[in-house]
């Protein structure tokens, strides 16, 4: 799960003997897979299902990977913040800092063959799925080297090879798409699952329940994940939803409430959900389930928090107090939790972790510099990718005087 382009540099750094004190006890952390047992912060709450246990198995490699991934994501989002303020990123920019544990924990439980689809707060999930910093920043700045060639923007990050299906601007519209991905997985009988992410604001969309009904009806390997950061843009959840217990909203669908700031809890829950969704294996003869009791679909609610406002144009403090934000940051910050775990288990020193963060700062700055170098898309790109071959459409320039291009 390590982000490929930073892996080599940090591994080589950490293989050096780091401190003299108790060095004999320290293994090279990056490849250490001795299991460590950790308890999640809070127990899981289940709805119509037996929740998984609080005890999570992990290992130093994984913990360090979590730390590194989350630190990189955090750095990227902070950098995007300053880029937006410098007017290099325009339009909408929805930042994910504070919620990194969801992205990272989910990645730990899945493979690249599984699909993830989410809404517009997609930068970090894109990174988790194998996206590079350069692609992210270039796309944010609308450059040619972006993951969507500069034509998508912040809300349209996609990575087909990594199984990341975006990146969608309309609230809730990605959930039926996610069910479609699950449908295709069931159709092709490959044992993969789809995680369709949405927020607490989208949880009130009708199409979500329509999609949930269809997914449960046909036993699609879909897991719907509500990233509940308690605010739908500026409206708190209790002001928008009669029942803010989103994991229960599936009614006949089993639900699980997870502490979304604890990466290990997220990982445990996602693993549990994936196993649940694949329990019966691919069905050879498709027949809709006719009992109410068994359904393979799972609804996860991640109790998480975002430090920034809804987007860059939202200060984030008009509908919540700064005390609340700093309180969460002190008590529940996902990176801090992993850092404490690493230090508690003596897997690295304070200084090493700080070095890693400094390294990432540098990487992010380099990526931004490279992205700034990247050119704007060519004007002919305006007309590419509208259709896939097939049409002999002519497109005129705005003045209608000359044929600008022939649509392929």
């Amino acid at each position, binding site marked *: 799960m390590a982000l490929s382009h930073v892996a080599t540099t940090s591994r080589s750094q950490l293989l050096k003997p780091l401190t003299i004190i108790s060095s004999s006890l320290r293994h090279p952390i990056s490849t250490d897979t001795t299991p460590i047992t950790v308890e999640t912060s809070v127990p899981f709450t289940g709805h119509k299902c037996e929740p998984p246990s609080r005890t999570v198995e992990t290992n130093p490699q994984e913990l360090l990977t979590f730390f590194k991934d989350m630190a990189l994501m955090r750095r990227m989002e902070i950098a995007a913040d300053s880029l937006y303020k410098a007017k290099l990123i325009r339009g909408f920019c929805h930042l994910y800092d504070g919620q990194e544990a969801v992205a990272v924990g989910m990645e730990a439980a899945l493979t690249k063959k599984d*699909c993830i*689809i989410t809404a517009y707060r997609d930068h970090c999930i894109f990174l988790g799925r194998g996206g590079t910093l350069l692609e992210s920043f270039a796309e944010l700045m609308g450059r040619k080297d*972006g*993951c*969507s*060639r*500069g*034509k*998508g*923007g912040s809300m*349209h990050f*996609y*990575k*087909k090879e990594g199984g990341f*299906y*975006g*990146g*969608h*601007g*309309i609230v809730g*519209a990605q*959930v*039926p*798409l*996610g*069910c*479609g*991905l699950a*449908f*295709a*997985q*069931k*159709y*092709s009988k490959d044992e993969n699952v789809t995680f369709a992410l949405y927020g607490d604001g989208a949880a009130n969309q*009708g*199409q979500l329940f*329509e*999609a949930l*009904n*269809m997914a449960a*009806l*046909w036993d699609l390997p879909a897991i719907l994940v509500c990233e509940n950061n308690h605010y739908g843009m500026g409206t708190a959840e209790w002001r928008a939803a009669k029942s803010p217990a989103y994991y229960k909203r599936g009614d006949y669908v089993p639900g699980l409430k997870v502490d979304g700031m604890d990466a290990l809890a997220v990982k445990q829950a996602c693993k549990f959900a994936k196993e649940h969704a694949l329990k019966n294996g691919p069905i050879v*003869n*498709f*027949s*809709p389930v006719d009992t109410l009791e068994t359904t393979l679909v799972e609804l996860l609610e991640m109790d998480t928090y975002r430090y920034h406002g809804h987007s860059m144009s939202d200060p984030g403090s008009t509908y919540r107090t700064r005390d609340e934000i700093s309180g969460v940051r002190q008590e529940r910050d996902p990176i801090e939790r992993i850092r404490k775990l690493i230090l508690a288990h003596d897997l690295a020193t304070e200084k090493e972790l700080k070095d890693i963060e400094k390294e990432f700062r540098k990487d992010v700055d380099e990526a931004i510099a490279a992205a700034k170098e990247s050119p704007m898309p060519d004007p002919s790109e305006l007309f*590419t*990718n*509208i*259709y*896939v*071959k*097939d*049409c*002999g*459409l002519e497109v005129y320039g705005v003045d*209608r005087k000359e044929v600008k291009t022939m649509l392929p």
Partner: protein
Amino acid sequence: MATIIEGIGATTSSLNSDRFQLPSRRSFSERKGRFFSVRSEGKVIGGSRGGNVSPLVTNAVATKGDSSTASTSAKPGHEVLLFEALREGLDEEMMRDPTVCVMGEDVGHYGGSYKVTKGLAEKYGDLRVLDTPIAENSFTGMGIGAAMTGLRPVIEGMNMGFLLLAFNQISNNCGMLHYTSGGQFKIPVVIRGPGGVGRQLGAEHSQRLESYFQSIPGIQMVACSTPYNAKGLIKAAIRSENPVIFFEHVLLYNLKERIPDEEYVLSLEEAEMVRPGEHVTILTYSRMRYHVMQAAKTLVNKGYDPEVIDIRSLKPFDLYRIGNSVRKTHRVLIVEECMRTGGIGASLTAAITENFHDYLDAPIVCLSSQDVPTPYAGTLEEWTVVQPAQIVTAVEQLCASCHVDCIDYSKDYTWPNQNKKLLEVSSCNTDTVLFSTLLPNMDSFLSMQTDFSHESLVDCVFTLDMNLSECEPKADFKQNKLADFGTVAKLGTVNSKPSFNLNNENSSIAHACALDMSL
């Protein structure tokens, strides 16, 4: 140049010199053609240059390589109804490609509300022919999500109007995902369903969604009209890598036609020439094709020769075929079932005007449905939709505003110094008379309007004095025969441009007569 008309046997004329109209230059060579002219008494005079008049094609349904006189027993192919043709197309594609699947309401066990998918669920199973709950937004979204990973779903809306609920998915995800992902994801879906005005189905079930969808970038739209093109187009749509919205019509499902046994796929972007002609291009699609063909029968009897094109591809328009037709006939009539405002006809009018303005002799006439919700009452519903009688009137109006190409100048006159010109009014029935004549250099003609009362003008002969000294005649001018066209048209009463009528007679005297309505 100064022109004076002396009316023989008429009351004093008043020339209104403000009404000179000099139409644009046209070259004579483009106007060759063969058509019929009908005198006011109704006699048909063949005006073919080549000789014999060939039979008109009056088939409402164009079949591939079929002629109306072939005997039925020896014909190849098999007869199907339109919904069966669609089913055949779907079946063949599902057999050929395992990623093709169908989803929609009642498509599986029920067999489809219009029987298009009947029998497919038994053959391919419940997963490939999926009965969805009534959730258009989400199952359309589901189909699009499935398409992102490589399936080719055919999404059925039980009625096109229900797809308004899925507009977000169709517009944002279906149309735009290929673009916003920078080309990473293809969405090879087909979204199909019946639309259009049926028999008293009410306002909400008689919607024409092609006008709403037409500006979504990234999608293609086709409308089928016969069993032959239904099967060919659905196969092409399924094989296309782009999202295609496939418009069927509720009233056309029971059309019967003989289609070939062998497999065939039609092109999604091509228009179909239903009936070649010379006088006017009638562009239409879906059900209105049949109203047009019905009107065509009447028009042929009246002596017109309409060219009927079923545009089929609503997005993009087949401007190649349409343009060539406009170049041939110079007059366009669009007959559609969409509303007038923002409909397919409106876009087509704009496209033709922008691209082929020089070829047009008259403004494009667009006959569309009224901009009203479709009422339930049968008579009212009939009036919302374009009827054949209206098409006939429109063609007559359009053709009446035609201009003479050339005039046969009798051997009695010598050019270029002749400054007397004989004009004859052969009939008129309106308040004002327009005299037109082609100027000798053939590049323009002059028309004027007078205020004679019409009774006095019938069978009158007028001379037109023109100072032609500054005109240079063309070398082959004297050999030019009368153009073989001209029909007596009964003009409508409103908003028609001043026009004249040329009657082709054995006499070599040019007749120019104008009938016009009160402007």
